């Protein structure tokens, strides 16, 4: 198509829309939870996203950065984010109080292939703040429980205080329609009732899985992937059903600024969800 025939007038891919922080509180010392709603009600209700997608958040004067969406599209209206204090934008976000305005645009990225996952078993493997993007798909599967087969969650954090959404996971343990195993690397409270060890030590506790019928979803710190993938491969889960969501530097979210390029793909367009096959194929992913 000729460039001349393109109409950019309506396309405003970079314009942040005003959104209000409805609720915010600390999940851990350096991770905060944000519940956000577009000021424009129409926009708030029409914001269609998939679990695993991300949004760009602007804080006035500080800048803009990408954040994975932690809420589920099955509960429309409000968007949720779990944000670790790491740089300029997150520091500015941490200063903002409830009712403050931020800029929001998105949703971006491929997200998890929830259509393909329908009817399949789901195994979610979380390390630390990896709970942020995986919470979306977890809540989505709970809200649509009958659309999926077995659901199992393995979650490892450094210390009990760093396990974000602890209560949500403990309450999952009460449910009979899913399996949930929790671990911390070290218990510094003396009150930890679950297992101690890295997340891979939870695999032996998993009930027998139906590997060809299972999607494994992984997110955690970069060092975790290698070890978790090894376990998943051992379980014989197909390479293209091992999904992971990755972090990269992004300045646009829409495949223009180039920062998230890996090989011939852009993490913001073709990711942030990749399969283990992608990882083998493209090398520099993890």
């Amino acid at each position, binding site marked *: 198509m000729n460039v001349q025939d393109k109409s950019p007038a309506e396309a405003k891919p970079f314009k942040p829309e005003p959104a209000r922080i409805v609720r915010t509180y600390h999940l851990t010392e350096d991770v905060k939870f944000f519940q956000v709603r577009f000021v424009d009600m129409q926009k708030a209700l029409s914001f269609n996203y998939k679990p695993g997608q991300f949004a760009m958040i602007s804080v006035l*004067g*500080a*800048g803009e950065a990408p954040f994975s969406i932690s809420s589920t599209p099955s509960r429309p209206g409000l968007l949720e984010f779990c944000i670790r204090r790491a740089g*300029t934008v997150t*520091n*500015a976000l941490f*200063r903002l109080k409830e009712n403050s305005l931020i800029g929001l645009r998105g949703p971006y990225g491929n997200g998890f292939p929830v259509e393909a996952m329908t009817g399949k078993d789901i195994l979610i493997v979380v390390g630390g703040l990896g709970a942020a993007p995986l919470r979306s798909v977890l809540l989505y599967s709970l809200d649509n429980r009958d659309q999926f087969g077995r659901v199992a969650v393995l979650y490892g954090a450094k210390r009990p205080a760093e396990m974000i959404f602890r209560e949500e996971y403990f309450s999952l343990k009460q449910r009979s329609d899913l399996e949930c195993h929790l671990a911390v690397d070290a218990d510094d409270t003396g009150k930890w009732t679950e297992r101690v060890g890295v997340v891979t030590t939870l695999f032996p506790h998993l009930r027998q899985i139906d590997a060809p019928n299972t999607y494994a979803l992984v997110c955690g710190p970069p060092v975790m992937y290698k070890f978790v993938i090894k376990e998943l491969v051992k379980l014989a889960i197909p390479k293209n059903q091992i999904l992971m969501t990755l972090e990269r530097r992004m300045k646009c979210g829409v495949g223009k600024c180039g920062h998230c390029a890996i090989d011939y793909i852009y993490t913001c367009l073709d990711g942030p969800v990749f399969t283990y096959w992608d990882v083998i194929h493209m090398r520099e992913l993890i």
Partner: protein
Amino acid sequence: MEKEKLKIGIYELTGCAGDALLIVDCEEELMNIFKAADIESFLMAKSDNRNGELDVALVEGSVSTEKEKEELLDIRRRSKVVVAIGNCACVGGIQAAFLDKKDWEKNFKKVYGTIAFTHTKPAQSKPIDAYIRVDHYLPGCPIGKEQFLSTFARMVGGNPPELYRFPVCVECKWHENDCLLNKDIPCLGPLTLAGCGSVCPDHNIPCFGCWGPTEEANLTSEYHLLLDKGFDLEMIKKRMANYSGTRIAEFFAQFRKEKR
């Protein structure tokens, strides 16, 4: 409700006071500077200076006496954020070039002879991060007006400065200059932090490195490139060392060992 203003102090250690002067020289913005923050201390611009708690301290100059070291430690204790401003504070400045203890003692004697110092003990000139934790670095000799104002405005807004981390070449190409190095002119653009607006190369003058070296300055490559182009070894060394302060001392030390 009016927002509480940041308490800011501007201090000068050893240097030419060019950075403080540049701030005073922001004439059109001076009112805005004083309106946006409470300038608690600024020797060059005001007389009622207070040495209390600060949100931000801007420190110019290198540390070259024991007294300055004490003053600096005190500033750090009183300040939430310390910003090194100017080449002397960031990397030690011209007075720290060729930093090498033996050289310094020799040079010091050469200049001052055997004069006894009574008011303070002189020390080898060093950047302020030799003694304290520095939160941000605003480079330049002197600092640039635009970079200073945008840094100041960001700090007032509660955000850290966002400065270029890349070399002068990037800005030089933005301005579509023909590369001086390729014309066999000894330009330090590839080694030097941008932010100056590539003013020298814009006027066909090679970069002398006054913004100080970048994090990843490839000294080895530039050094050999200039040698290759037939420049005198001493000239290259002097030029590279001039504004690099302590930042490239290691490079030269290593180099000396090699040549021996």
